[in-house]
């Protein structure tokens, strides 16, 4: 199976972020970077008073609010946004009209246009539209994720239709009318006077192979997206908008798309509505980067944010690019897990900015992490409002995998191993393999201790009969602490309850995976090309028969 073709950061692999999805991924990536540099990491629920003075929004289940501290100071974070960003800046960023005013005032290029309050009349707005050159854009002032944005309006008839749709059907009364600048959209992530990442967002799209129908191609594309940590929560959903858009281009969902032809499915470029993030940091000219830097500077107290721009392809406008939007709480998953190109380390840049004294600490070969789901468990049902993660071992991590063979299945032996490991400041886990084998992963910064643990494993005082120990270097990531991965410890009710919870978690994960695979298979089977190809048809019939 093909992995997504973007290059992710070595220290932030798919496995490490497995339990951090969507906006939790943003928070996790930043928190992990700080924690790996030796900063103290705490997670909070919404009930904590620490964020009373900071603007936060959304439902925010645990995993979005955290703090990092050194000996001298503490900084609080909401997803990717830290407490150096002023509330005023957040407010300005959330109102597109305000953003524009501030940017314009500082001489940062923005599309010409104007915001209208709730009580503005339709006539007033139409009147204003006549002062601008078509094409125009019509959008709500404060909706997010590209909702209700109507672009490329060619004439007054289309403009009035858009106005009716946004103001009266969707009910967004506060709106903005502005020039449509045609060109490619980019999101830049800026920290102070540096652009850390630039990615191009191509609207949801597919490429024909002369075999599959458009509907099948969308499914195939979704299959690829599922392999990507950021995109697997943002699949392409075939909705009316897509159907219309495809129809407009002279196709239907059942058309077989010709080989090599790229078909856009929407106009919206948001990753969440199926857009592709493609890293273009190195190719982006400095001139464009400077516009984004100036935009962040133009908003007082902002310091770091995502900046959405359009690189101008229209000769009527002089500036090389215009700024569309500023997002102080930007999602960064696209830059961390691009569909193509190189991942950019925005978390490191954010931590550099908040804790410049930790700048020299390189975490690029760090294999240590913490499991989000177990750490956040006490916060999920609000038995706790703050949880501090055990500190990360500092320095290079050595890890070994020992397979211990013999009479080694007793829980007491495993508990003893755990104690020995923790006494020596080692991390890892022990896991049952087969009836006379266990797997022990040992990781620590002291190579001697890690290597010497082989001897320790043989020293169980109650005389467990270790027959043989195999060892090898362990290259996979390791979680902090030490866990006994014993699924079947039912010795006490408490242990049973604990195992039960763990099992339910695993069950949920497996079900999800299974459903996905099932869906993939069913789509492949239903595709025309498949029906005409013969190789493994029997399997297909068996599966079909099952349903």
């Amino acid at each position: 199976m093909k992995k997504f073709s973007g290059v992710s950061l070595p220290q932030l692999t798919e496995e490490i972020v497995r339990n951090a999805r969507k906006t939790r991924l943003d928070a996790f990536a930043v928190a992990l970077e700080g924690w790996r540099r030796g900063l103290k990491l705490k997670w909070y629920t919404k009930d904590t008073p620490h964020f009373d003075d900071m603007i936060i929004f959304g439902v925010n289940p645990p995993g979005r609010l955290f703090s990092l501290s050194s000996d001298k100071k503490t900084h609080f974070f909401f997803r990717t946004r830290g407490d150096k960003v002023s509330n005023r800046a957040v407010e300005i960023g959330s109102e597109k009209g305000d953003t524009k005013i501030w940017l314009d005032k500082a001489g940062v290029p923005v599309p010409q246009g104007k915001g209208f309050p709730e009580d503005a009349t339709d006539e007033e707005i139409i009147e204003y539209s006549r002062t601008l050159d078509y094409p125009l854009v019509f959008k709500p002032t404060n909706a997010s994720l590209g909702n209700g944005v109507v672009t490329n309006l060619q004439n007054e008839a289309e403009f009035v239709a858009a106005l009716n749709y946004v103001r009266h059907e969707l009910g967004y009364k506060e709106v903005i009318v502005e020039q449509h600048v045609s060109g490619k959209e980019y999101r830049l992530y800026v920290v102070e006077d540096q652009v850390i990442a630039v990615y191009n967002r191509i609207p949801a799209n597919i490429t024909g192979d002369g075999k599959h129908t458009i509907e099948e191609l969308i499914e195939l594309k979704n299959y690829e997206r599922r392999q990507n940590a950021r995109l697997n929560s943002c699949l392409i959903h075939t909705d009316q908008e897509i159907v219309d858009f495809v129809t407009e281009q002279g196709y239907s969902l059942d058309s077989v798309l010709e080989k090599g032809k790229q078909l856009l499915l929407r106009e919206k470029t948001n990753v969440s509505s199926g857009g592709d993030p493609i890293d273009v940091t190195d190719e982006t000219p400095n001139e464009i980067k400077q516009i984004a830097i100036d935009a962040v500077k133009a908003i007082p107290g902002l310091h770091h944010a995502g900046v959405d721009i359009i690189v101008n392809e229209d000769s009527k406008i002089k500036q090389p690019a215009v700024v569309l939007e500023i997002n102080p709480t930007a999602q960064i998953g696209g830059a961390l897990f691009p569909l193509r190109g190189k991942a950019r380390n925005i978390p490191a840049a954010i931590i550099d900015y908040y804790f410049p004294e930790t700048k020299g600490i390189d975490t690029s070969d760090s294999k240590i992490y913490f499991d989000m789901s177990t750490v956040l468990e006490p916060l999920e049902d609000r038995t706790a409002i703050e949880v501090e993660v055990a500190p990360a071992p500092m320095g290079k991590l050595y890890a070994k995998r020992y397979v211990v063979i013999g009479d080694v299945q007793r829980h007491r032996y495993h508990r003893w191993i755990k104690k020995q490991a923790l006494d020596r400041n080692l991390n890892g886990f022990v896991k049952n393999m087969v009836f006379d084998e266990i797997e022990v992963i040992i990781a620590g910064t002291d190579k001697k201790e890690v290597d010497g643990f082989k001897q320790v494993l043989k020293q169980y005082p109650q005389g467990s009969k270790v027959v043989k120990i195999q060892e090898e270097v362990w290259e996979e990531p390791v979680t902090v602490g030490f866990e006994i991965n014993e699924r079947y410890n039912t010795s006490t009710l408490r242990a049973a309850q604990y195992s039960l919870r763990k099992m339910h978690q695993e069950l949920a994960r497996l079900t999800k995976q299974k459903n996905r695979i099932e869906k993939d298979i069913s789509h492949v089977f239903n595709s025309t090309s498949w029906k005409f190809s013969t190789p493994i048809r029997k399997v297909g019939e068996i599966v079909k028969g099952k349903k």
Partner: protein
Amino acid sequence: MKIDPNNWLSHLKHLPEDISNYKTCTYLIALEGWRRGLKLKFHMKPSTAIGPSARFSLSDGKKQHFFTVSRGDKVTNEAIRICSNKPLTYKYLSKNNVPIPEGKSFDAKTSNEEIISYAEQIGFPLVLKPSDGSSGRGVITNIKNIEQFKEALAEVKENQGFKSVIVERFIVGEDYRVYVVGDRVVAATRRTAANVIGDGKRTIEELIEIKNKERRKNPFIKNRSIKINRDMIDWLKKSNKTLSTVPEKGERVFLRRQGAYLKERDPVDITDEMSDHLKAIAVKAMKSIPGLTHCDVDMLVNEKTGEGYVNEINSRPQISNHLFPLEGLARDVPKEIIDFYFPETKKTPRNDFFYFDFNPVYDAFRNRNVKELTIPDIPTEPQIARRFRLSGNLRGVNYERWIRRHVIRLQLNGYLKHLKNGKTSIVVSGTPENIDSFRNIITNQAPKKAKVTRIIEKSWDKPIKIGFEFKKTHPDSDFKQLEAAKNEIKKLKKEKQTYENELKNIMNSKTWKWAKRIQKISGGENSY
């Protein structure tokens, strides 16, 4: 002799299940502070021992105190060091003229001959105990002659591996545990040898069974049943009794010799009966140890003469024996300890309407990936509690997730439980306004597939656990659930494997490979 839970403190009647021994002590002191509005945090111990003795801290915003089980930071490290070393403790006690049993300690270098000759010199009966043991480990009492003494010495030094020992005079008397805070005895418990009281009908064996049932209800001794064995039968024989003897109504029959089978003893509260003379000895004992401000003083008391001797001081004792006596009144030691550390909260009303769950704290520290955990503050604004019983189609329709969103937003505490009879119970506490909004929401809204047909509302006056819990439907059948979950996982894994293989086959099929290649090529063209 029936256990009367009314003797226990009413605000501790609803403890979370499965909390016992040291956990109880830790929990109860933390709970007392938390219920007064202090900020409560649990800390993973810097030492690596994995035990139930979690460290916690309480803070009023101005000052913070750390506790390990029942010991707080107003006890100095020096005091802890002295108390964990019996010879040293005795030295300080005798210096301050506190009565202690006559005796002598011997270090690892002393020969057995020397120890034996000392034993003969002070005379029998004697007690032999390790210098650094705790909770009665390795203590052998009532040694009557030189043969027994030699046996005992071999047992303690060779079998149990203690190096240094104490030989002292065996004092015939009752065993008292006296809790001292500051300059006052706040609780005293006599540990009476295991016994039953006759009802004129049942045999001793039947009475033991009943007694064990009662013991199991007691958080302090629920894991310490009285076990019938040879020793017991022999002991009963001495008073011409057997297990099938029917004692007279009101007759107390001791099942063990005093000072033996320490874990089977009954905690009996004697705080009010204890003489001022004995209380003064206990307080004096504590004050003899520099830096010790609250502790348990173990005393041997001859109740006939009224004389008492101090034989141990414990800086980190269990306190639940004072809280859950088998006879007598419960003494609120947690209250005394918190009064001592936070005297300014003495008058703060304790909010007994809430408690917090302790088990997640242990789960969180279990794998050591969590270092510190803060319990939510106890709500300060007045709250009301309601129970809603819902009928309708609420299972497997994401109702729980939907409810979770609303309880988080409205800051409600409580739980949801699907009942066996098909109904669903939701207990919530919150401000009256938020309870109103919650009622509105569950009455007028529901997630897509869910359907509520009927809601019955009742007020609720039992204590509420802070946070919001989704309770399991059958708490008594965890093992069954576990089995079912195991099987389900197995099945799913198999299924997943099958699908994965199928998918792999398809991926490797020619058509797919070809299609994929084209995608890749065109993908390259896309990337501008």
